[in-house]
């Protein structure tokens, strides 16, 4: 197992460098002049020239890439024009919020998606199955941002069940930052009131963010469960008189969950992208909102940094998914 991790980590480093190359290419080969992009729209010409020299943007592309990598290594991701702060500090402040939202959403999608997928298989072609399948097909088709607006309108405004947005009431005491994730920090500092309010604020955004993932997990898990339940070893298990509950939740699910894992990994990545939409609707101060604000005022450094961070986290997730896959499937485990 250790050997797999090492090999994958080395491979990931190459992927990361590749990611930086692509992101670097976007900022340089794009028709826009990189110096003007970095300086921002309201910079004067001589400011742009000064920046060009300062950042060595006039040198050939290869050296510029080397300079770019060394800056990254030194943690200098540039400064944001619209927050007037170093991008690194912004990321430190905003990324934990996005991470909390995405983890919350993927947990919701999996904890609801897998059972519903199983139920869809159990009630095949009955009413519950049709409704679950309709939810699955629409879930993928519903625009996340529009769904967020409708949830906000109905659940928050009309029924006043949930707050409109943000992460916490202004005057609610904030737990001291350990992980930057409010739910975790408030639990660590034992402040249950804040924890409840933090979860409270997470419900609607994570509902909007997780629906497409929930839909896909249902579809994949339902198909896999159907296929697995027809397998011979299930017939054998039933022939031995093993109880249906054990057959479904263990014998079948452990096999069906493997391909579903791949979908969970893929959907986690799309969710990272989806934060760009959902955080805007709910004014949720994460990297998604940070990136869109930067994009609208063509403030370039933050967008590049956020792309890097989200890309890297998606790679990490893919690695974790592969590891769990090896953990669960002995046939794969024995090959490494």
């Amino acid at each position, binding site marked *: 197992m250790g050997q797999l991790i090492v090999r994958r980590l080395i491979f990931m480093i190459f992927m990361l460098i590749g990611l930086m190359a692509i992101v670097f290419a976007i900022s340089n080969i794009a028709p826009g002049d990189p110096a003007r992009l970095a300086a921002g*729209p309201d910079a004067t*010409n001589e400011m742009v020239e000064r920046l060009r020299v300062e950042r060595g943007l006039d040198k050939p592309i290869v050296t510029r890439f080397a300079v770019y990598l060394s800056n990254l290594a030194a943690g200098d991701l540039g400064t944001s024009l619209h927050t007037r702060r170093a991008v690194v500090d912004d990321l430190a402040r905003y990324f934990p919020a996005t991470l909390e939202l995405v983890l919350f959403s993927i947990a919701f999608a999996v904890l609801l998606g897998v059972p519903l997928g199983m*139920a869809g298989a159990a009630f095949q072609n009955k009413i519950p199955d049709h409704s679950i399948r309709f939810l699955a097909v629409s879930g993928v088709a519903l625009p996340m941002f529009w769904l967020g607006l409708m949830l906000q309108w109905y659940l928050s405004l009309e029924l006043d069940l949930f*707050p*409109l947005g943000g992460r916490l009431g*202004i*005057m609610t005491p904030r737990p001291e930052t350990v992980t930057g994730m409010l739910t975790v920090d408030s639990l660590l500092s034992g402040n249950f009131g804040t924890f409840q309010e933090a*979860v409270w604020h997470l419900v609607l955004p994570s509902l909007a963010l997780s629906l497409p993932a929930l839909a896909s997990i249902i579809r994949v898990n339902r198909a896999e469960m159907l296929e697995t339940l027809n397998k011979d070893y299930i017939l054998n298990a039933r022939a031995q008189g093993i109880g249906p509950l054990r057959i479904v939740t263990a014998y079948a699910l452990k096999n069906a969950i493997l391909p579903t894992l791949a979908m969970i990994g893929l959907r986690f990545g799309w969710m990272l992208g989806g934060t760009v939409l959902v955080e805007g609707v709910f*004014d949720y101060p994460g990297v998604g909102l940070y990136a869109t604000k930067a994009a609208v005022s063509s403030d370039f450094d933050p967008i590049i940094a956020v792309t890097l961070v989200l890309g890297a986290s998606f790679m990490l997730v893919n690695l974790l998914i592969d590891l769990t896959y090896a953990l669960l499937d002995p046939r794969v485990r024995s090959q490494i």
Partner: protein
Amino acid sequence: MKITRRIATTVIASAALLAGGFMMLPTQDATAAEQVDGKLYMVIAGRQPVSHLDPALKYDLAVRMMQQQLYDALVKYEGNPSEIKPWLAESWSTSDDGLTWTFNLAKNAKFHDGSPVTAEAVVYSFKRTMEINEGPAWMLEGFVEADGIKAVDAHTVSFTLNKPYAAFLSFLPWWYVVNPAVVEANIKDGDFGQGFLQENAAGSGPYKLQRFEQGTAYVLERNDDYWKGFPYENDRMGGVIYRLVRESAAQRAALLKGEADLVTGLSPEERQAVNSNKDISTTSLPALTSFGLKMNTTQGVTADLNIRKALAYAYDYESFIKIMNGEAKLQTSPFTDAVQGMVPIADMPRRDIAKAKEYLAKSAHPDGGFEVEYVYVEGFEIERQMGLAMIDAYKDINVTVKMVPLTWPNMVARGAKPETSPDLMAIFATPVSTDPDAIAIQYHPSSAGKYYGSHFLNDPDLNALIEKARAETVWDKRAPIYAEIQQKIVDLQPEIFGMMRNRGVALRNWVKGYQDSPIRMGGEIDFYSVHLDPN
């Protein structure tokens, strides 16, 4: 594959329970927006961020709103119409030649750290602003020198002007007094305390700064032992929170849900919509504020006067009124009606396609075919609708419009330099006093770089007229000069002159004591008299 329905139903039930688990969490009570251990905090939801707090630096509606609560000035504007009220200075007198003004300070005035507000502190504050020479400094430039301000005794300050200045008193409310001890203690490498005062306060005002969370919320705590006391009895008032909300829809929603007690900057139909709610009321008050689509007179396509005239005559002025649902009046002069010496200008441009084409013919683009960039405040619906009206109107002269929404700080930054100032920029400008000089100065090079000076107009004749009128003290002699100034400004067409709109706020009925004064900028609230009583 015989799966009993029983397991499947248990599986769904557990999933529903999980989802339902979220539902049982408590809802927020909605009497007052925020409560912290019994104390009520009033929440004001606005869209404009507070870029800094330093009284000596540039000001806008959000900055000045905060400064007014954290600091005191010698005098203060209150009421409708706006009148100057004694504040730190209980009384004042002027010498016969009108050159020396003497102010007697209130004896009991004290700073937040308990130290008394002395004449020395007043002198220190005025000298600090003059030395930094930003923000309000332009108001007294050329009339008062730093050494002309002296502390006669602990509670008396005298100003010696080098030439008589009618508007002197009308500018003083914007010169706030800082606590010298606190500023001196926080000077870092000769920045005169600017670093410290950026996000901290050293004043004597009715509120203290509790939390300054840039981009999210600014929390002010009520200064219970404020030396001047409060005009209401309510010991439950804990403070005021100015909370940033990105879009007007979110402001409205916060108000409806009771997450905000008062919201500013709503469009007329939004105010109508919230007004229909029984426990929300709205105010609507004509203001000194003028609106103009400032054009860059030095760079780009709008540098050519003919193009500016063409754009002015092609614009559909009726759309201003319709967008404001009738709650506005078209400006008949660069000076708004409430300004002394305002005279209606005969040839104020109105929509006249023939004339527009006439001017176009004389320009470098005889048949149009160019694009203008229109910059407006992101999320400000009124200005966005004007953009759409502009696109429709300019189709007739074959001009396309590129709408660029920016945050207010970015807009001000773009308007600060001739090279980056956009072709057209939507600006609401409120004069700092009713004296005509406060508006005329906006078309003088000394205003270049300020948000209302993004046209960078620099016409020698006009500048001479403004300076002459400024120095004149006898009103009968000033009036005709200002009339000529207004005509000259219209001829130079540095902007498309817009409208005087009513402005107002929407607030929950449990908000009491709200007073608006025309001199205040749109969305600038005076917290002093405001308090909540939820029952």
